[in-house]
């Protein structure tokens, strides 16, 4: 999410709106937005209907998700971060899409693991590859 915050100006310059769908209820989404200082619309989808419609799934058993989670936990412990019991579905994956006119999908990114999201340079490339305003009219 910090990558998105970092790219806020680039989205504006490219004329691209951003929306964030969460798997939380409204109250938790408000907390999520405040905590991460997100300026974009945050859309709670606790029943994950839109997740399902976009094919955004969960980590598959045997995909290495458990080891990645363990590795991440060890790193957090070593860094002195406070540990907490997660209340959310830790197996849920995210995804990112760029949707153009006529709802055409211009970019679809489904990470294989929870921590493999697009980084700022990847997002910038997606914006750079977009057709200009004249081409999209």
């Amino acid at each position: 999410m910090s990558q998105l915050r970092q790219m806020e100006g680039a989205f504006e310059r490219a004329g691209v709106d951003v929306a964030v769908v969460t798997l939380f209820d409204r109250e938790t989404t408000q907390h999520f937005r405040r905590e991460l200082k997100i300026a974009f619309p945050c859309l709670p989808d606790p029943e994950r209907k839109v997740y399902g419609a976009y094919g955004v799934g969960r980590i598959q058993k045997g995909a290495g998700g458990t080891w990645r989670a363990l590795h991440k936990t060890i790193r957090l412990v070593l860094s002195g971060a406070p540990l907490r019991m997660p209340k959310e579905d830790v197996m849920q994956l995210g995804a990112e899409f760029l949707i153009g006119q006529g709802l055409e999908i211009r970019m679809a990114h489904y990470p294989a693991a929870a921590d493999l999201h697009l980084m700022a340079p990847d997002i910038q490339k997606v914006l750079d590859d977009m057709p200009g305003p004249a081409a999209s009219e």
Partner: protein
Amino acid sequence: MRLSVGEKAPGFALEDDGGQPFVLDERRRRPLYLVFTRHST
């Protein structure tokens, strides 16, 4: 099922965390970068 580039994205109507409606449909003119969060960190 996963979606691919060139396919039509599913439209939807949700409310944002402030209760304001958010609709994605064919009337949208500006491109939308849509992010699905994973679990919080």
